[in-house]
């Protein structure tokens, strides 16, 4: 019985995310098109609704090209190593309402440990292709993912500090309830929470190699980065891995800051929590697509500057702000102290960045004549 229920849950979760993958890949093209004053795919089925099916069939029947000099074993393994950890991540997301699969005591740790394996997959893909574009793309991707893991973990620690647990389920429980009867107790509605949420969003964009941080796949200079030599179903797997990464990252953001499956209003509590969870997740995925349509790709030095000179210090300040908030017991003192600290940090960063443009300019250490 227990096994059946578990399998049912796994089935529901996997079905949902696979469907979301199909819908998101269509929605991304549609929304991008609309934003760029185009129509988007509209040939397959009504309004192009069956486009994902057509894409899937195309991917499946496409020739699987492996370069002659490629390392066949790694070339084959890389997409699998990419997707498998991402699927594992879905297991610990706190959907609530009985759909939560496992409540690991060290859930957050599990999340980061497992998601970091995808870096190895990127390396395997890049190196095994025996293509310099692939190798360069993989190097960029790994450098980027390693760098952005620092602010990501630093930001994810703040809710851990406040909730006093690494378990995602516990964290969602900590955000239950409503202040003054209407405002939910989500972490995002605290000064450190909103900053943390934004930081988490930005860093998980970078972790997932999404625009504006998609320079490992910058077409103009690297063809397609580590995906250059992939086609057919293996490419589809990578594509799926990228999307699953976005879903898992969004799920993490929902769990850490957006109250998991909590309803935004007490009136709406009759809707089961997992539906709320999925709604929030879908909204976040939509924002990811929106960001992709809006922002241009960064340069590699800007990327590193943003991480080490912008996000990491902000994450540290946010950590302190969360501590202040926690020990001042929330309330207006918390708002004044923590909020003041964060606004001060923002103003300082603003000053530093806008007054001295030089920190964002490229420096040539080696090419100096």
């Amino acid at each position, binding site marked *: 019985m227990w096994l059946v229920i578990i399998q049912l849950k796994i089935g529901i979760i996997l079905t949902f995310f696979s469907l979301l993958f199909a819908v998101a890949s269509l929605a991304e093209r549609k929304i991008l098109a609309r934003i760029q004053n185009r129509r988007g795919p509209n040939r397959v089925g009504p309004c192009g609704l069956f486009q994902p099916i057509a894409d899937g069939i195309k991917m499946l029947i496409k020739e699987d090209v492996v370069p002659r000099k490629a390392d066949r074993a790694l070339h084959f393994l890389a997409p699998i190593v990419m997707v498998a950890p991402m699927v594992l991540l879905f297991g610990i997301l706190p959907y609530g309402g009985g759909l939560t699969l496992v409540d690991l005591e060290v859930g957050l740790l599990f999340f980061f*440990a497992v998601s970091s394996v995808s870096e190895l997959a990127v390396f395997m893909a890049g*190196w095994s292709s025996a293509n310099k574009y692939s190798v360069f793309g993989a190097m960029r991707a*790994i450098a980027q993912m390693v760098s952005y893991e620092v602010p990501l973990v630093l930001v994810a620690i703040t809710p851990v500090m406040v909730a006093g647990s690494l378990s995602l389920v516990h964290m969602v429980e900590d955000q239950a309830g409503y202040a003054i009867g209407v405002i939910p107790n989500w972490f995002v509605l605290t000064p450190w929470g909103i900053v943390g949420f934004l930081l988490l969003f930005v860093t998980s964009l970078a972790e997932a190699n999404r625009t504006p941080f998609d320079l490992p796949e910058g077409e103009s200079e690297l063809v397609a980065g580590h995906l250059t030599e992939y086609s057919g179903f293996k490419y589809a797997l990578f594509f799926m891995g990228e999307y699953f990464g976005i879903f898992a990252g969004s799920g993490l953001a929902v769990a850490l800051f957006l109250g998991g499956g909590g309803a935004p209003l007490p009136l709406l509590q009759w809707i089961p929590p997992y539906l709320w969870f999925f709604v929030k997740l879908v909204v976040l995925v939509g924002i990811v697509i929106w960001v992709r349509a809006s922002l241009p790709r960064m340069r590699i030095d800007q990327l590193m500057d943003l991480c080490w000179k912008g996000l990491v210090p902000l994450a540290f300040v946010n950590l302190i702000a969360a501590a202040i908030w926690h020990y001042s017991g929330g309330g207006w003192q918390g708002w004044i102290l923590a909020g003041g600290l964060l606004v001060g940090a923002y103003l300082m960063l603003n000053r530093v960045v806008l007054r001295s443009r030089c920190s964002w300019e490229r420096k040539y250490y080696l090419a100096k004549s």
Partner: protein
Amino acid sequence: MNVVLFIIAALILVGALATVCVRNLVYCALSLAATFAALGMLYLALGAEFIGWVQILVYVGAVAVLIVFVILLTAPDRMRSVGPLFSRSRILGVGVSLGVFGTIAYAVHKSGSLKGSLSMPAETDMQSIGEELLSSYLVPLEATGVLLTVALIGAVLFAREEPVEGSEESQESKD
């Protein structure tokens, strides 16, 4: 349970052997990563959740990735093969590893954990680990932090050495 432990032990051994025996630098690095992951599994199988996932996060996610990154950066043409299996200093190597093994074996033997006299705490939860880390092990923890920071700064200094005006290097580059 025992079967699982044996499987994991076999994985670790195979991974470790592959790390030193395979003649392809990238395969070596990846086998090392697999060994790390198997070690993490061992911890998990023994009920040490925290240390198990930390092992995977730090070793597979960071150390192995760094090794791989270094391979990408330094030896793109030598990646396909590294020298012969047995190096010239193999006698020394065997001696060193025997010494290390002997020390560890002696330590384990003396500690009495083999006799089962060590009392395992009933439950190692995050709470107690955190409290231990921040009370009895506070100084080592902080010292490790300082050490890592120093290493980080040192690495930055090495990597970003700008030629000072008038120094030899800038003279050279001017010529």
